[in-house]
């Protein structure tokens, strides 16, 4: 059973003054340093609207364009299930939704615990799990199955995902062709592009290459998403000290400028096109050279970025429930919990990477199940404390009186289930000497695989998808 998420507590990392300073710093970068922007269509639009590309090839974006884009971008966003039911409503109520991966480079096999290459067939398993878990609202289909040719990886993974997942699908693609194909495939499932646009059950994920570079592929993906009115996340992933300055405020300003550049392009392509603020200001570990997924500074800056998004009034795409650890150990659980707690208190709305391990090399179904439980528990924290006559319950205290007990009081009977009872964690009076949690997690996965049925698509749609499958499997790229 999942209770609805009430975030009646909030953690503010950036106050209004800090927000204004960072916003101004981002505009300074856009107006005085410039962006390295590729893609003739995006550049033409920018130039037609007052941006200038200097002799050094850097594009100067005037603040007026940013201000216009911030006005026209939708402040509310509704994402739908595959069947067209509203599933994620992002609005003033500051809701939060979580998602895991449909695929990854590697899979931490839930039965053997062994880390191995991700295979096409594993997507159905990840999707089934995510389809069942009440606190997982979407999956990210990235296209990395090792047994699929890279040229069609994105599309094939999306086909597997859409067949085996009835909630909302976030997707990224290896290339521009992949994006066009996936929009066509999703339109078949939605019953036409118009239906897909009105009730999007998919949203795109694309990235610049920080610092301040937006190659042709990135701007084209923004362009195609905006012209098709497919919601799109623009996600600068930077590493402090490597691809952003070794300072918090500078990194936030740079990420914000990269995001704003993407926002401006989408709004020039199609005013009012749905857009989601992404930001992953990570840490470049100077000892090992990885980009960390579990660093506390990373998650502080994700939360700070969610403040920036909230000031702009744009939906924010967060990151949590992931770890640098390769196996499900103390580190994995500590990092995951810290991130989920920070995220629940932040203003992030759509949160990805639940269950991602080994600094984004693998995904672990077990960690997804654990995270689902942790999120459920945290919802009971972020509900906060309400103070009113009913909650004060003075008459109940009076009725029981000094020295009495509440166990048999009707008030207790009526309300005791408001407290959270974990399904995986132990509160036994006499705890076992061995942890029971891992066994329960595996049992839960086994039982979901056995008994959960993902709603099937209509036979006619499945036939159309099979045609796509054949087309993709036999696709031969023309020589360039």
């Amino acid at each position, binding site marked *: 059973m999942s209770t609805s998420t009430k975030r009646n507590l909030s953690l503010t990392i950036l106050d209004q003054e800090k927000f204004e300073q960072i916003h101004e710093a981002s505009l300074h970068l856009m107006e005085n340093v410039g962006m390295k922007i590729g893609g003739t269509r995006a550049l033409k639009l920018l130039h037609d609207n007052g941006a200038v590309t200097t002799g050094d090839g850097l594009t100067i974006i005037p603040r007026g364009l940013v201000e216009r884009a911030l006005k026209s971008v939708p402040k509310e966003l509704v994402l739908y299930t595959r069947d067209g039911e509203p599933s994620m409503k992002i609005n003033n109520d500051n809701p939060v939704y979580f998602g895991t991966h449909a695929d990854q480079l590697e899979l931490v096999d839930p039965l053997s615990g062994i880390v191995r290459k991700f295979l096409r067939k594993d997507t159905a398993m990840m999707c089934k799990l995510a389809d069942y878990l009440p606190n997982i609202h979407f999956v990210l289909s990235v296209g*990395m199955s090792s047994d699929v040719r890279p*040229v069609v990886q994105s599309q094939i993974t999306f086909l597997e995902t859409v067949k085996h997942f009835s909630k909302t699908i976030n997707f990224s693609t*290896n*290339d521009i062709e992949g994006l066009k194909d996936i929009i066509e495939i999703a339109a078949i499932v939605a019953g036409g592009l118009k239906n897909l646009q009105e009730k999007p059950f998919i949203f795109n994920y694309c990235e610049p290459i920080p610092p301040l570079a937006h190659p042709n592929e990135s701007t084209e993906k923004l362009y195609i998403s905006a012209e098709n009115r497919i919601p799109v996340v623009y996600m600068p992933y930077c*590493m402090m*000290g490597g691809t952003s300055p070794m300072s918090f405020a500078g990194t936030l300003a740079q990420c914000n400028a990269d995001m704003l550049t993407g926002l401006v392009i989408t709004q020039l392509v199609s005013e009012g096109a749905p857009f989601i603020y992404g930001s992953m200001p990570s840490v*470049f570990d*100077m*000892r*090992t050279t990885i980009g960390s997924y579990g660093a506390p500074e990373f998650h502080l800056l994700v939360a700070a970025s969610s403040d920036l998004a909230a000031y702009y009034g744009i939906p924010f795409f967060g990151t949590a429930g992931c770890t640098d650890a390769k196996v499900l150990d103390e580190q994995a659980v500590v990092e995951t919990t810290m991130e989920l707690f920070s995220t629940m208190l932040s203003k992030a709305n759509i949160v990805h990477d639940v269950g991602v391990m080994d600094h984004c090399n693998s995904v672990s179904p077990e960690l997804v199940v654990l995270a689902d439980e942790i999120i459920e528990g945290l919802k009971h924290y972020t509900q906060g404390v309400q103070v009113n006559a009913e909650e004060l319950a003075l008459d109940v205290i009076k009725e029981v009186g000094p020295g009495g007990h509440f166990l048999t009081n009707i008030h207790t009977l009526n309300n005791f289930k408001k407290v959270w009872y974990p399904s995986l964690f132990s509160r036994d009076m006499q705890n076992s000497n061995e942890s029971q949690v891992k066994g329960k997690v595996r049992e839960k996965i086994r039982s979901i695989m056995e008994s959960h049925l993902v709603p099937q698509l209509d036979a006619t749609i499945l036939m159309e998808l099979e045609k796509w499958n054949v087309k993709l499997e036999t696709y031969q790229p023309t020589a360039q």
Partner: protein
Amino acid sequence: MSSFADLAQYVIEGAESQVREQVKSLTAQGVNPLEIINQGLIAGMSVVGTRFKAGDMFVPEVLMSARAMSAGIEIVRPLIAETDMPSFGKVVLGTVKGDLHDIGKNLVGMLLESSGFKVINLGVDISPEQFVQAVKEHNPDIVALSALLTTTMTAMKETIELLQEEGLKDKLKIIVGGAPVSMDFADQIGADGYAPDAGSAADLCKKILCL
């Protein structure tokens, strides 16, 4: 009195101006320039390499040490015949066609240089033809290919195939790296080596050149 030990220590500390002074002082004393390099500068850098591997030194410190070492080498370079300059070999490095990511590749380049390799960094989005051209021009011992995306990994294979077709592959070693790249993949496409991170790339290069 200047000593090799002091010089090595300044390299370890990344103290560029002290390294310069020390090298100038040693050359003024008439010390053999090759000994200055081997017993002072490279000796210091080799301690840096060991400490980095042990997790006791961090990338920015390593790069400062490398910079200090290079500054020292530049002072003695005019005193040494080009053929006598100690070098582990020449590496042509680039991110393959279609891929614009370069932070990892640049780090590999800097750490290879700090280990004594001469590195020709071609940049990003380098086509198989451009790699072939660079090999013909620079005659390297090693070609190092980088990719971050699963799609551009295929360009690694194409690059190796073209080097083979051009009859260049047998004259050099090819190494590959990048987030989605694995040892299996390296074997599959006929690469001579794979390193999981920039730190171990230098060891790999030394190993495959049997140094």
